[in-house]
Each structure stands twice: as C-alpha cells, then as structure tokens.
C-alpha cells in the first residue's frame, strides 16, 4: 500500500485487526452488532434443538410415511439454517457456547418434545400418543421460528444486508414449513382440506432458499 494513498477505513485504523469493518458498518447504521449477534445465537440454538427434537418427532410418526418425510424435510432444513448462520456469529465476533446445555437453554424457541410422558422404564409412553399431537408440536415450533426470523429481519432491514439476506431466506422456508403442518394437521385432526399450496421438495432437506446460492457449502 502506498504511504501517500492510505486505504480509507473510517473508524477502523488501517491494519487494525482488533475491529471489523463488517461489524462497524452495522453499528454506524444504528444496529448494535453485539445485540444482533446474541440474538442470532439464540435463534440458531432454536434451529439446532429443533433439528434434534424433530428426529424424535419424526420417528414417532410410525406408519405415516408421508408425514415422516415432510418432517424430515423440515428437520434437515432447520439444520441447514443453523449451518448457514454459524459463520455470521463468528463474523460478528461471537462464538457458540462451549456447553451444549447453555446453547439449548438460550434457544429462542421451546423444546419440541414428543408430547407424551415417559413410562416407569424411562421410555416414551406411547399408549395415548396421537399423530395429531405430534403435528401440533411441529406446527407451533415452526410458528416460533417464523416469529424469531421476522424479528431478525426487522432488526437488520436497511442496516445489515448480509444478516438480513440470511434471515429472509430462512424465514421463507419456515413459512413453507408452517404451511405444510397446517395442511397435515387440518387433515389429520379436523378432516379438513387446507392446502399448503406447495409440492414436495426435490430431496429432503433441499433448503431451496437457504442454500440456493451454495455460498456456505457446509449447510
């Protein structure tokens, strides 16, 4: 770099690696990058716990192969959402909690547990477990995710296009998921036709919005 023509860096001195312009430009636009980063950790905590809990929910949809596959789609896409945003947390100078219990405890959405008690042997008591009960848990989990990512879209709109882009991609898929589970629950519980308006993904976990540019191949 020429001494006569130093790079313009705003509040960050040339060569200073203790700050990130990628974070400071967000602050300059009125959003606290630390607050945003913590909210992102909460949000991907929910994506991660949902990925875990959907594994159990999917397995208990015994004999309902179409429901299982749709739940698998949502499960893998929620994992993709976690993968998509993890690098953003680090870009904003954060990190994942070292203890996974902390990560789960701070997740912004409730645990999506199988809606049945455990029996005396520590196993799921499935004697009264209904498919519609599982579908309702899935639906409410998706609704929480919609609210969370809408909030992050609100926080970042006009101030942080990188996070906004991720959040709106994820929001698109969460809204798909809600529509799927409304359709299934309506049919299963109420015997009503309430179309999602969608057809199947190409493959489970396609995540057509959150991975369609493949800018994060770990997703």
């Amino acid at each position, binding site marked *: 770099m020429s001494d006569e023509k130093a790079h313009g860096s705003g509040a960050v001195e040339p060569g200073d690696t203790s700050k990130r312009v990628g974070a400071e430009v967000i602050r300059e636009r009125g959003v606290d990058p630390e607050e945003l980063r913590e909210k992102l950790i909460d949000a991907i905590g929910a994506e991660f716990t949902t990925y875990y809990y959907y594994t159990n929910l999917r397995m208990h949809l015994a004999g309902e192969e179409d429901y299982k596959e749709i739940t698998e789609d949502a499960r893998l896409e929620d994992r993709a959402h976690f993968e998509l945003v993890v690098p953003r947390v680090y870009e904003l100078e954060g990190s994942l909690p070292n203890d996974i219990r902390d*990560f789960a405890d701070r997740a912004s*959405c*409730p645990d999506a547990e199988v809606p049945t008690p455990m029996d005396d042997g520590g196993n799921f008591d499935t004697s009264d477990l209904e498919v519609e009960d599982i579908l309702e848990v899935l639906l409410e989990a998706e609704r929480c995710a919609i609210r969370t990512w809408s909030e992050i879209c609100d926080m970042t709109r006009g101030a942080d296009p990188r996070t906004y882009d991720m959040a709106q991609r994820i929001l698109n898929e969460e809204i798909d998921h809600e529509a799927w589970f409304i359709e299934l629950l309506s049919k299963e519980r109420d015997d009503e036709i309430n179309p999602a308006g969608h057809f199947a993904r190409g493959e489970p976990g396609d995540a057509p919005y959150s991975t369609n540019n493949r800018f994060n191949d770990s997703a």
Partner: protein
Amino acid sequence: MTQSASETWSVRIVVPETSSLDAAGETFDLEVREDETILAAARSAGVWLPADCQQGWCTTCAARLVDGDVAHPNARRYYDEDREAGFVLPCTAKPRADTTLIVGQYDDFLEFRADHGRPPGSSKLDT
C-alpha cells in the same frame, strides 16, 4: 370452568422513558379480554411491544406487574419465583383483573433469571 369470552379488563401499559422502544415515555390504556393475551391485544391496538417466541419461553417480552393480576396458562417457561418477583410475560399473560404493566424489562429479567439459576439468563449472562 368456561370463562366468558366477552369479559374484559382494563390494562395499562407503561413504557419507561429510558426504554429503547419507539413508544418510550408513553402510556397506553387497553381493554383486554380474559381469553386473549396482553401482547396480542396491544399489537391489535397498534401498540408495538417487543416479543419473539410468543410462547412464554424466550422472555423477550418481559414486563413488571405493578398492579392487578394475570394468568399464564400457556407459558412454556414461567417459574413461581418470576411470579413472586412481579415479572410477567405479556405474550402469554391474560388479565384476571384491571392491571398495570411496565414493559421493556428483558434485561432486568435476564439478570433475575441468572441470579436464580434459571434460563435463559443463566446461559446468556455467563458467556
């Protein structure tokens, strides 16, 4: 017992002047049915209160109960000590009397939860 859906309570929402909310320093008076949440009633009335999960879990909406009474029949994570300390979660709180709330108490509530070893404060403030 089935509650009458038409029964309503007067709910006063106080937004502290120090709040980062757009409505800082304002007070709103709402009529809220017993079967609706205070958050939903506020937003329906054009009063934008903070909230995230809306399932009584994340605590983003935390408020302090100044007067009155609320119930949290559907909150996913609300503890006896929260109630005893006067913290409420408007996203799931339904009025059971004329009530006054101070909203925008998320930070204080996180600290309270952390002090009592409860999430999410216990997991967020130690990191």
